[in-house]
């Protein structure tokens, strides 16, 4: 699957360029933070990588193959919560993997233990708090042991303590050997979690640099303005 090489990726629904020639290389380990203003194309890039969006042009090379097929999971800002128990909501991730129901539940219980939700396994998933629901969504993704995990602003609406808990789990998943690509608007989170930063604006990757260098010496003017919180929300680059 790795290295992932994205070349000249374009997505133009109704002629409007949402991804406008993205070039990006991703190695086989670490956490890459995807930063950029609203409408930069961060979420669309993640959706393209997990196959939800078919690009208009360009290629994604998955370590020598055209399509990854399996091993990619994504956690959304507002994850799906079925009208079922916490345990069932996690175990369902293994349904397409032809794992027996009992085995699914055993594995789900183990991963719930790791995200701190074991005590709530029988509760309704819809009665969890926002932070707990994100932990459930991470557990669901983790259960499938993905090679690449895409996180689309999973802490966008969480308070600091819930955010910290999600970040702890993300680090653990990374330690387990999963490559992580995470979109966020939280610059502090990017410095805490990230190994490197991909900065996007107007559908292009403007900069890809190690996290420390990106924040201390951003290469582009847009990135500098973004870090300082002065990037106009609608710029014509």
């Amino acid at each position, binding site marked *: 699957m790795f290295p992932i090489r994205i070349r000249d990726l374009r997505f133009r629904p109704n002629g409007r360029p949402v991804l406008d020639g993205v070039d990006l290389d991703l190695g086989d380990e670490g956490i890459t933070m995807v930063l950029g203003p609203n409408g930069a194309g961060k979420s669309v890039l993640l959706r393209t990588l997990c196959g939800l969006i078919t690009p208009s042009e360009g290629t994604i090379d998955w370590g020598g193959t055209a399509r990854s097929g399996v091993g990619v999971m994504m956690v959304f800002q507002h994850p*799906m919560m079925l009208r079922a128990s916490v345990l069932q909501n996690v175990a369902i991730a293994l349904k397409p993997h032809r794992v027996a129901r009992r085995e699914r539940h055993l594995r789900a219980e183990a991963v719930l233990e790791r995200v701190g939700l074991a005590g709530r396994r029988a509760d309704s*998933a819809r009665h969890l708090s926002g932070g707990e629901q994100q932990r459930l969504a991470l557990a669901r993704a983790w259960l499938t042991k993905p090679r690449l995990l895409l996180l689309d602003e999973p802490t966008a609406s969480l308070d600091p303590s819930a955010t910290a808990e999600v970040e702890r789990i993300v680090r653990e998943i990374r330690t387990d050997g999963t490559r992580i690509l995470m979109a966020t608007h939280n610059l502090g989170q990017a410095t805490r979690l990230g190994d490197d930063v991909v900065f996007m604006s107007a559908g292009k990757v403007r900069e890809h640099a190690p996290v420390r260098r990106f924040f201390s010496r951003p290469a582009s003017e847009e990135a500098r303005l973004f870090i300082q919180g002065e990037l106009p929300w609608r710029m014509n680059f």
Partner: protein
Amino acid sequence: MPTFSSTFSEAFSLLATFDRVVAEIVLLSLQVSGSAVVLGTLIGLPLGACLAIGRFPGKDAAAVVMNGLMGLPAVVVGVVVYLLLSRSGPFGDFGLLYTPTAMVIAQTLLVVPLMAAIARQVVEDVWQRYAEELQVMRFTWWQSVTTLLYDCRHSLMVAVLAGLGRAMSEVGAVMIVGGNIDRATRVMTTAIALETSKGDLPLAIALGIVLIVVILVLNAGAFAMRAWAMRRYG
């Protein structure tokens, strides 16, 4: 000429004494309509879910047809099933005409479009919210259908109740394919129509009361179950 109050009084005494004729008619009605609703649930709900999440040419046209068939006249279904099951029809050899099985077939055809149309609407709303995650988890099309039906199970109770109401209250189809034969194919609606025309209003009213009570009890049960489920699962 019986008065309004004396008719009701006799009707209640028929019910209070648990009249055998009334009991037999009620039991057959429940068997026929219950079977039709079970079959309608097995066919209509997955069909509605498939229409909700499937991508195929003519999907919108299929949805329009399904919605249109919700108002399918029972007598039309009765005539079609009659033609299919009559001795000269394609299924005439089975000898099903004027049997409860024919009535079940007719009522199933009546309730399937209704249940499928409601299910399509319910599932489509949920599918719009879940589609991306189910696709990311690489659910097959059928796994998505079963997952959505399970998730919407409490809302789909409305579809089942609507089907039951349609099946229990229709008279045209069962009259044509069942023949309203005493102690064989006489159900509550056909009995009410017959007894009213004969002037035996107490029996007609007694059956009407049972019909209404059955539908009210089932609706109350479904309402309570849905309320419990909403509290339990959100």
